[in-house]
């Protein structure tokens, strides 16, 4: 019986909440009270974090490299915008869910394209879909508002109670709540047998099929779920900024996302969140130095990170924090990033 309890213990171990995770979320919540003048930028980080989380689900867990994730973000953004601008659904949370579902439908429809072919084909198909949507949005500018953006978005109070204010306070806590809830769901999924099968597919699709995993079905499922997450991120964008334009489909967004995921790492759920925060910091930092050419520095960061190697950077970045943690909590308290080099 000890073998069995051993197995049970180890299998469950990874799913347990680490104290650092709880600290992380409490800290995020506290930010809402510590930095009352920075709601807008913090909300942006939260939205980016959700967007990055959605990419992590397919990249870090299923190994699908997608350059067109902005497609789902954009669909969610426009759906939420249109729902509000035309008064179809005025309650924001309901609109959020509906917009997310719109993106989910697109995700499901396109998932069949994405499971075929090699890396490059997937890259191209995902990019092609995003560009197609951008072209569509521009073509139908009478509906979408074209480059000027959708006009007339006016957010009603959440649940009829919490009005969106000028400082972005409601927006921040709203976004944070959405992020947390979706994160909980993602955590559940990732530590389930389904989540494990995704990692197996990423590691060795041949072996995965050979033990009976319906590979394509699982990939379609996670891709669709990730599309929902990205769509919700887009809808949040529209709702908290009260504006949406063609920019939501831009390749830049997908590229920024890649950067966040590179900085933060993939395959452990917090990568996207950390990456989003650091990316924003970098962006703000570079923009203040060179407002027009900050793209150069972002590009440089990307190049350097890739050349040096993500694993080494993470190890270096965690060196000091782990040193401190070891003093406080003993050897077992260190934070280790699960090394998942993407396929």
């Amino acid at each position, binding site marked *: 019986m000890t073998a069995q309890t051993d197995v*049970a213990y180890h299998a469950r171990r990874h799913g347990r909440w680490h104290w650092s995770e709880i600290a992380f979320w409490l800290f995020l919540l506290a930010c809402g009270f510590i930095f009352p003048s920075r709601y807008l930028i913090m909300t942006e980080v939260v939205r980016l974090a959700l967007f990055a989380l959605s990419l992590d689900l397919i990249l870090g867990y299923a190994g699908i490299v997608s350059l067109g994730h902005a497609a789902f973000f954009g669909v969610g953004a426009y759906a939420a915008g249109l729902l509000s601008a035309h008064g179809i659904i005025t309650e924001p949370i309901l609109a959020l869910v509906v917009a997310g579902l719109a993106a989910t439908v697109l995700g499901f429809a396109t998932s069949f394209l994405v499971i075929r072919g090699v890396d490059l084909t997937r890259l191209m198909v995902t990019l092609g879909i995003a560009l197609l949507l951008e072209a569509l949005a521009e073509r139908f500018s009478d509906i979408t508002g074209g480059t000027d953006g959708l006009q007339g978005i006016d957010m009603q109070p959440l649940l009829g109670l919490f009005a969106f204010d000028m400082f972005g306070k409601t927006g921040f806590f709203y976004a944070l709540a959405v992020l947390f809830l979706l994160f909980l769901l993602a955590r559940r999924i990732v530590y389930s047998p389904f989540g494990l099968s995704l990692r197996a597919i990423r590691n*060795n699709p041949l072996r995965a099929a050979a033990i009976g995993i319906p590979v394509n079905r699982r990939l379609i499922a996670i891709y669709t779920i990730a599309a929902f997450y990205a769509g919700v991120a887009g809808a949040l964008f529209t709702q908290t900024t009260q504006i949406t334009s063609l920019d939501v489909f831009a390749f830049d967004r997908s590229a920024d996302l890649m950067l966040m995921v590179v900085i933060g790492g993939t395959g452990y759920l917090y990568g996207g969140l950390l990456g989003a925060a650091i990316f924003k910091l970098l962006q703000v930092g570079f923009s203040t130095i060179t407002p027009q050419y900050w793209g150069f520095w972002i590009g440089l960061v990307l190049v350097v990170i890739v050349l040096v190697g993500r694993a080494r950077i993470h190890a270096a970045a965690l060196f000091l924090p782990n040193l401190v943690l070891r003093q406080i909590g003993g050897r077992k308290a260190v934070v280790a990033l699960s090394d998942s080099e993407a396929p």
Partner: protein
Amino acid sequence: MSIALETRNLEKHFGGLRVTRDLSLKVFTGARHALIGPNGAGKTTVINQLTGVLAPTSGRILLEGQDITDLPVHARVLRGLSRTFQINQLYPDLTPLETIGLAVSERLGRGGDWWRRMGTRDDVNIEIAETLGRFRLLDVMNEATSTLPYGKQRLLELAVAIAAKPRVLLLDEPAAGVPEGERKDILAAVAALPRDVTVLLIEHDMDLVFSFADRISVLVSGALLTEGAPDEVARDPQVKAVYLGEAA
């Protein structure tokens, strides 16, 4: 004697190259059937077609009387067909615990469960523990597969195929590349397989073949040269000619 696995006029062409020629192979239930032949005879190609990794150019494949020729790989596994690979196909980042756990979950139909945390189902845990124990993998169950020594990896490869509780098991050179000292673990595990599991074995190691198999088929250039009981095959002059110059 019922037939567990059968091919009917199986053909596989790669362009102009005929890799499998009109192969009609019958494996009886409960058999210990070995498929031997010189290098390049196309043995692994046959296994790949049997499991669905490769689609045959023509011909049918039947598992326990059911035509499975058009079924995808994972569907065949769920019908009781399992295999090991000649070169280990394992998950580098996953631990043996996770690897076996996944195989067991899938078999029990719980693989798609996205809500329950791993490790919370007792039936799954018991089976994992049992399988790991049988293959002497309990002591390394939490190490990433890529860090394990080759012998342990090969045992894991075998364990994963068996965790699927197959009715027909295809072993592709299970002892290949395993250092001399660790071979007997593999051989013992293969010998300990339950009698009701049908085993088709590809092997070059003649000692293993002759000690294990009750029936041997000889494949040369994709076609069946001869088949029969081990001693018949060993005496066959054609077989000797084919193997002349090869280390027995």
